[in-house]
Each structure stands twice: as structure tokens, then as C-alpha cells.
């Protein structure tokens, strides 16, 4: 279950090969509609990051919130980075995908989403963190 949830799907153009996340119905570079979904690697590198200190409503408990733009193989993804202090964040840092809880939706749902953590802090599977996905 957790392995399925960790799949990060991007769209890849069969004509020109361009790969983007989030997936699109047509290629943003050549316009082709011949698109397939491909899974991105789970390990990547931080291209840019910020620490959100003035939260949006609902995210107070996650503040300060570290948000990074991460290169995953041929594409990039925006996500939260956990298990790291804001002052330890660096451009170029290696991170790995993990599943964590995020803020409640407007209808009260409790969604789990793909977040990232520093690569050296252990394997993404079998984490003992209290808010990791219940197995």
C-alpha cells in the first residue's frame, strides 16, 4: 500500500520525450497528445526552498513549514521537507520521498501526501515517525 502511495506520476511525451510534473494531457513543449504516465524516482535534489512562517489557514501546526522545489529525475516537484531544521536546509541537498499527514481538507478529511526528508535520515519504508502512514 505504502509503495503504491509513493508512486509519483509524471507525463512523458512519446514524440519528444519531454517529462513534466504535474502530468499534462498534451506535451507543453511540442503539443503532442501522445502522452504516457511514468513514475519518477523517489530520490532527488533540492533546487530551491523556502520556510513559510506566515501560514495559510489550516497549516498553523505545520509552521514553520519548509517547502522545496525538488528535481526528481527528468522532472521537478514541489513538496514539504520534514525531519530537518530550517537552518540546515541547503540548495543541492539530497532528499527522499515519504508519506505524511497534511492539513485537514474543508470537509474534514485527513489526507496523506508525499513529503520529502533528507536522504541520510534513513529509508522511506518502515519509518517509525508518529505521523507516518499507518500500515
Amino acid at each position, binding site marked *: 500500500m505504502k509503495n503504491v502511495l509513493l508512486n509519483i506520476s509524471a507525463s512523458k511525451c512519446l514524440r519528444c520525450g519531454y517529462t513534466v510534473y*504535474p502530468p499534462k494531457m498534451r506535451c*507543453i513543449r511540442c503539443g503532442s497528445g501522445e502522452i504516457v504516465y511514468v513514475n519518477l524516482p523517489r530520490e532527488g535534489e533540492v533546487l530551491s526552498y*523556502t520556510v513559510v512562517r*506566515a501560514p495559510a489557514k489550516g497549516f498553523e501546526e*505545520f509552521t514553520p513549514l519548509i*517547502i522545496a522545489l525538488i528535481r526528481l529525475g527528468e522532472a521537478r*516537484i514541489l513538496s514539504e521537507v520534514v525531519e530537518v531544521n530550517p537552518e540546515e536546509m541547503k540548495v543541492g541537498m539530497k532528499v527522499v520521498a515519504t508519506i505524511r499527514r497534511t492539513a485537514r481538507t474543508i470537509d474534514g478529511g485527513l489526507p496523506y501526501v508525499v513529503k520529502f526528508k533528507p536522504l541520510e535520515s534513513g529509508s522511506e519504508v518502515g519509518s517509525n515517525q508518529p505521523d507516518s502512514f499507518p500500515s
Partner: protein
Amino acid sequence: MRGVYVAGVGMTNVGRHTNTSLRDLGGIAALKAIEEAGNERPEALVIGNMLSSLIEQENLASLIGDHIGLRGVSGFKVEGACGSGGVAIMTGYSLIASGLFNKVLVVGVEKLLERPPSDVIRGLAYAADADYELVHGVTFSGLNALVMRYYMGKHGIDYEEIAEWSVLMHRNGSRNPFAQLRNEITLEDVVRSPLIADPIRLYDSCPLSDGAAAVYLVSEKLRRVNDTPVTIVGIGNALDSTDLTSRPELDDLLASRVSADKALRMAKVRVEDIDVAEIHDAYTITAALSIESIGFAERGRAPRMWCEGRFSPGDKPTVNPSGGLKARGHPVGATGVYQLAEVVMQLRGDFPGVKVPAEIGLTQNIGGVGSNATTVVLKR
């Protein structure tokens, strides 16, 4: 296509309008523009607005149209996030250029400050990608911060060089009676202001604002209503993704660049010919990207240029003599209409703040992190 002229403008002060309703704000700006246009009754009303749903009010054309005696005219609201005002102008322009109408009133209006700031911050982020970005709690400031850190690293630019923009904007804004922030500040004030989303500090950001502005557009047929009509000689709008991640280059605002190209080409005007511009500096980084996308500076050069005194009053182009979003304020869906009204007043010579002797002006209004941009070129 028929020519489109600006026969009148109106605006309210930008700021916190606790005792003025959304319909009154829109009405005040609209009636001022109608008065300037010789009290001609418009045939159509286009409203630019992003977030009136936050205060539980939609159907704004009927609300404001009825409030100012326009039952029976055509009308609707258009939306393009923070670029809603620009989209409304493009729509009003099209209604006249197409020959459908001769007199169109465009009103940009936003009233957000009756909601708590955390609601407004969440609402502004609706401009981003709900499924792929907002789910992580990133704010609009956070998205711009990702771009700012990337830009600083790529071009080797110091924070202080970018922050100098705020000092210039407060200096210009201090002379604009319609501006929200009329105090002058120092670079140290910016650098010492609290971080809201590193590296963006409070003083890198525009304030949250209420306000309304209106422009009265007419065809050649109605040009007589004002003795100094300003002509819209070029207009362009372009889209880009709502998400940041799928863009090939993070600091290339495609929509901003393409909309400026379209507008300048249509106007047959070179970028060097622009005397005055009002651009979309929601954050200091947005000022740099907008200035570079329009072509006023090479990529990665804008902050050094404004530190050397470029874009200040006296330079060609003078950029944001109003104080920009940073100091005039950013009443979201009204901002693009403020910009147009301000440049019209510069061309007529009656802007009540920093005056720029100008024959040709430009406005650029941006929605999202560059996901929807409208550029307008105007001539006296």
C-alpha cells in the same frame, strides 16, 4: 479592428475600507470615471475581481451596476487571479474593438480585509495549483520565495540589491495621495523586517488592500467626450501554468514576456520608446522578473540597474511612479485597472503624485506567479 480610447478614469484610496462596502467602493470609482467621460451612460459594464466569494458575494456586475443606476446594460465579471483587472480591460477593449459597443465601463474592485489575514492568505493562494501545490500548505509568498532564491543563486544577486526596490517604491508612494503606504523607508527597515517566507521579508511584499478603480473606454465615435483622449495602441494577454514545477526555467515569466511582445508589436512601439510604466511588483522579486520580461533590462540585471538609479523618476522609463503594488497597494482584482488609470493620468499630465512627462506608457498586470499576464501600451 476599431480604435479604443480612454475617456475617463476613477479610483478610491487603497487601504483598509472598514466602513465602505464592496458595492460602494466599486460605485465610487465607477461614477468618477463616468463623470470624467461626460456623464455618458455606458452600454456595458465589465468587472475585474478575484476573491469576492471570500466575503460571500458573487454576481458583481449586477450588484455594482444596479447600485449606480445601470439596470438594463450588459455586464459580467471576469477573473484571472491577481491579473483580473488586466483581463477585465482586455475584455472591455474587445467589446469595443469588435464593434459590439461604443461605451464600456471597466471596474476593478476588491474588498478582502473584513476577513482575517489567514483566510485572505489562503484565498490568494487559490491562484496557484490546488491539487499539487496548495495541498502542501505553500502560500503565495512561499511560491514567490522559491523563485527569488533560485533567481539570486542563478544570477549571483544579493538580497539587499533586490530589497532596494521597496525603498524606491515607498519614496514614490509617499507622494501618491491614493497610496496605502505613504511612509518612506530605509534599506535597513526592509532587511530588519520579519521573514514571512525566506528569503521574502514583510517589506518585500505588497500589503493586503481594499480598493476600486475604473476606466471608461470608448470607440472613435465617442472620442469627443473627453478633450484629451488617451489611445490604447496595443494590448496582449498570455497564459502560463498555474504550477511552478512544469516550467522549463523558473525565472522566465513566459506569460509576462509573451503578453509584452504581443502588446508592443500591436502598438508598433519599441520598448526603448516607453516613457512611463506601471508594473506588477507583488514582491520585490516580481518587479525584477516583470521588468526583465518586458525587456527594460536583460535577464538577471534589473536589481543592479535600480540600485544604480535606473527606473527612478527622471529616468526613461520611469517605473511605478505610483509606488507600485508595494506602496500604492494591491487590491487584487482592481490592481490592473489602477495601473491603467494611473498611466492615463500620467499621459494627460494630471496624476496627483510623482509626475512623469510622457507620450507613451505601458502597464503590466500579472496573475498567479506569472500564470496570466496582460500588457497594455497607451499613447497620448
